[in-house]
Structure formats: C-alpha cells, structure tokens
C-alpha cells in the first residue's frame, strides 16, 4: 500500500469529520463522535484487509467506513437523517453499517461490537477459507465484561478475529488512567493465551505493518489476535464538546504528534510527495467533501411510513 494513498484517505476522514463539526456548530447537522486524531489507526488497519474480510465498528466509525471506501455523501446523508443515507436515516451518526462493503453490525453500545464479533468469526470459521473479521473497539469497551467473554471465546474456539483496541485515552468523559492500572490493553492477550501487540497508533505506516502481520498470522493460524493502536482522541466525546476537562499540555503534546502532519512531513522528507502534490490532494479532498455535503443537504427526508419498516425480516 502506497503511503500517499493512506495520507489521502486520512485527509478525507479529517475533512469529513471537520465538515460535520462545522455543520453542527452552524445548527445544520447533528452532533457526531469524531475520530479526529485516530485516522492512522483506521486507515492503517483497514488498508491491510482484503475485500473478503469483514469489519465491525462502533460509534466512532467514520474513519473505518471511509477507509473501507464508503461514500462520504451517503454517510453525511445518514448523519443528517436523510433517506439516501446508508441506513435510510434509521441509524444516524452512531451506528452506520454498509453491508455491501463488509462493514457490518455497527453497534454503539460500548462492547456491542465485541459481543457480535465472535459470531461473525464463527461464520467465517465454518465457511472455511481464510477471511478475517476485524473488530474495532476502544479502551472503554475493554473495561466492559463482554471484552473478556468475547476474546476468551474467540480464543477457545479458534475464531479468525482481529481485535483492534483503539486506545485513545478517553472513555467518553473519563480519563483512561482512572479506569485501569495497566497502560496497554494488549497485555491482556496473554491472559487468553493469544498474541497481542501495541503499535504507535499515530504512525499509519507502523499500524499498517503491524496489522498486516497480525492478519497474516490469523489467516494462517485461524486464531484471534489483539492489536492495540495507542493513540489519542483530539476532539471531545460528542460534538459539541469544549474539552474543558482535558489537560491542555497533554492535548498539545498529542496534537504535536498529529498522524496526518506526521506522515505529510515524512513523505516530503522522503521525496514521495511535494508541496504541490499535497496541495492537489487537499484540493481534491475539499471538493469531495463539499459535494458530499451538497448531496446530503439536497437529499429528501424519509417518508413517515418508514418508521414502521425494517422491524422484521
């Protein structure tokens, strides 16, 4: 995977999130749980997957969806409750699934994605083949009892699940360090008899390399793997959020390690990009996001009768 392609996608995710934040501030859109600052984790892992693989995610999902190729316009439409949204406006921002892209069963109950991942892993396991289910969750979900139940069962049943803990140091409005004595969730892998590893979640190349190795191991062994991407939530839990509860020095320290700026600088240094080529990418991203916002704003709302559909199969 070319780093420039990963940079472009990270920029798209950032621009998407910032557009939603701006629209919310103007009173034109609903609030969102952004993943600003965590783009390298999403892109690094998702770019290491193949189309046959499946993805489970949570309320902080824009990065995973866009990394997988979801259309920004249909995502914005969903956030805005429009009929053209991926879930016909019935999800809103919090649980967008795109089955056609293999982003399935998105669940906003913290830990919900973990409880479903074993079932997806069981289906993949019984189908044969070497497909993998990647399950994204946070350090908050790692404090739910279902984390233990899920990883343990996946280990006992040899299920091909890549557990990706995006340790972003925040559990809604609670500092992670208030909730656990260890610093790395990956340490818990040993307790289940599986492999675990922590990677710098702000370095997309490192994430991509670590995820690729983990996925290769799962394809071969059909055993789960716990990958922790150590990162930081640069914005609040749910927009709007003034982050008055965040330590300013800590936030500044992590902003200085912004994953997009980091990769940008590295590519310029390595001669893999020029200011001009990066400007061109930024321009393309801006156009895409403006078009997406236009599409969403001009899409119809669902008909009232839709409230009664999709309850039963």
């Amino acid at each position, binding site marked *: 995977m070319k780093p420039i392609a990963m940079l472009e996608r990270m920029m798209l995710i950032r621009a998407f999130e910032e557009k939603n934040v701006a629209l919310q501030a103007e009173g034109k859109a609903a609030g969102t749980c952004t993943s600003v600052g965590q783009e390298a984790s999403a892109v690094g892992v998702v770019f290491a997957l193949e189309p046959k693989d499946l993805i489970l995610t949570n309320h902080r999902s824009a990065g995973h969806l866009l990394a997988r190729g979801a259309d920004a316009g249909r995502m914005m439409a969903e956030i805005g409750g429009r009929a053209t949204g991926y879930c016909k406006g019935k999800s809103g921002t919090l649980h967008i699934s795109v*089955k056609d892209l293999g982003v*399935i*069963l998105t669940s906003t109950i913290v830990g919900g994605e973990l409880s479903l991942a074993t*079932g997806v892993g069981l289906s993949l396991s019984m189908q044969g083949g070497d497909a993998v289910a990647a399950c994204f969750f946070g350090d908050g979900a790692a404090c739910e009892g279902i984390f233990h139940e899920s990883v343990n069962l996946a280990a006992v049943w040899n299920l091909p699940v890549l557990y990706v803990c995006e340790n972003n140091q925040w559990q809604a409005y609670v500092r992670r360090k208030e909730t656990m004595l260890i610093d790395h969730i990956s340490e818990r892998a040993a307790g289940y008899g599986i492999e675990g590893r922590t990677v710098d979640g702000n370095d997309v190349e490192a994430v991509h390399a670590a995820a690729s190795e983990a996925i290769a191991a799962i394809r071969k062994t059909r055993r789960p793997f716990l990958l922790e991407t150590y990162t930081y939530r640069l914005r609040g839990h749910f927009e709007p959020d003034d982050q008055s509860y965040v330590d300013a020095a800590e936030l500044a320290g992590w902003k200085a390690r912004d994953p997009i700026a980091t990769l940008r600088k590295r590519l310029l240094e390595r001669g893999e990009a020029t200011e001009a080529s990066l400007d061109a990418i930024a321009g393309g991203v801006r156009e895409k996001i403006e078009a997406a916002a236009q599409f969403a704003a001009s899409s119809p709302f669902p008909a009232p009768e839709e409230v009664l559909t999709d309850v039963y199969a």
Partner: protein
Amino acid sequence: MPRITPMQAIGEAIAEEMRLDPRVVMFGEGVATKRRELVEEFGAARVRNTPLAEGIIAGTAAGAAATGLRPIIDLLFAPFICFSMDEIVNSAGKLRYISGGQFSFPLVALAMTGCGWTVGAQHNHNIEAWFAHAPGLKVVMPSNAADFKGLLKAAIRDENPVMFFADMGLLHSEGEVPDDQPAVPIGKAAVVRAGTDVTLVAYAKMVPACLAAAETLASQGVSAEVVDLRSVKPWDEQAVLASVGKTGRLLVAHEASRTCGVGAEVAATVAEKAFDELKAPIVRVTGPDTPAPSSWALEQAFVPQPAAIVEAALGLSRKGREEGTAA
C-alpha cells in the same frame, strides 16, 4: 400416535431441522455434553459447549445469524437472560431496523422458566412480557409436546430472533406428537376447547390449568372456551376477538406476575376492539407481583390454580347473567 415429552420434542425438532439445513448450529452451556446424539450426528463444529457466559452466547448467536448461520442457543434458565439482554434486545432486536434492513437475525434462544422444579426466583422468572415489549423479537411459549416441536421448528425456520420459553412444569408431561409433526406457525393461537359462555385465554402451563377449570365449569353449567395463545408475540388477536365475539366474557390467565403482563395487553386490546361485545368486565388471573418462591407449597400458591380460574370464571358468568336478566 407416539407419545413423547416436550423435552423429547425439543430434541427431535432440533435434530430434524439440523438435518434439513446445514446452516443450523446449536451452542450453549452444556449443549454438547447433554446432547451427545446431536454431536455424533452433526459433528462438534455444529454442536458446541460454551463458557458459562450468557452475554457472549447470545452475542455470538446474533453475529453468526447476521452472517449466514442459523443458531439455536440454550441459555438454560430465563433469569440468566439478564446477562444477555444487550445482545438480544439491542443487537438482535434492533440492528435490522437501525441498519435500514441490511441484516436479519434468524436465531432461537431457548430458556426454561416456570414453577414446578422448586428452583426459586433466580432460575424461575416468567419474563416473556419483557421481550414482547422489545421491538424486533418474537416470543413463543407452548403448552404441549406437539406445539413444543412444531413451534420450535417454526422458530428455527424464522428469519427473526425468536425467544422460546419452555415451561419447566410441562417438560415431562407426555403428549401425542405425530412422527411428521409440521411446523406450527408463530402467531397462531389454537382453540383447544370450544365453549359458548366464557373465553379463557392462556399459554404454557396455564393451558392445562384452564382445561381442568373448564371441566369443572362444565359440571356447573358453564361452557368455557379455552384459547391457547402459543405465541406471545405476535399474538393472535383475531382468534381471541373471534372467541370473545361468541362468549362475551374474557378471562386471561398467566403464571407471570400481573403488572404489565401479557394479560394486560390482551385485556386492553379486547377492550379497545370489542368493548361492545363484552357482557362483563375482563378478568385476569395471574401470578403475584413477587419473585417466584422455592418451597413447593409456596410455588403452588404463586401459580394460579384451576380452582382460582373456576372461581373467577363463575364470577364473570354470574355478572353476565344478572345483567342479562335485568335486560
């Protein structure tokens, strides 16, 4: 016709459906240990033991159901489902709707409940109404061996999550079940005794209780019609309304606690849609708003007995007659 118990009927239904459809799998606490015959016939991949962890059992079922399998899970005793409420209610019940119809959850959750084994309130709690109130789920609770088999077959074939509650008090009561017992449609009640004076609506072990009550009522000159709901959600409004249209009197019996129980829903619906047909107020005969006790004596005091149903039905009939006389 062969006579088998509901316990055997459950085993037969699972085996027959697993034979018909390779996507059907079963797992839960002790499933592979207790159902050796299923492991031998279908293999260890399709019949599995799990850790004692109801949350992940149900979550695994939901995730597997959405991706091509048709899981049957054994959650053992109904109160244990409290550990799997998120997976059943928030995932299996809602993710189809939330996703705009992208997923379906063909799964069956089995659980035992009801007085009869003196196991006490943490193993016995009739919580079927909780799931009737949760969108996206179906709920069945059969009263006899044939329906256990037929409803379980239907539940396994259904594209939606079905809660299958097995009344412990019935599991060893033999009944006639034809070898070719067909699936019993979910949402269809059965008139198990025809009558003209009063309608007794019930499900699970309250059906035999109502049948016993109907015998006594008949000896006292009251003709009771007994309607076995079989399914709690969707429930068969038409069958109940048709019977009440005939009798003009309704008694609803269930073992579950009274407040916001299934009886409240049935009574409210009949009051809304057939008030003019009623000759007397609707009566509920239910378990009390208490946890289920353990002592056999207290269990029997908790469960509505045929005598209580007879008394309530006679009260209903007298009211109707007095009014009839006055008119």
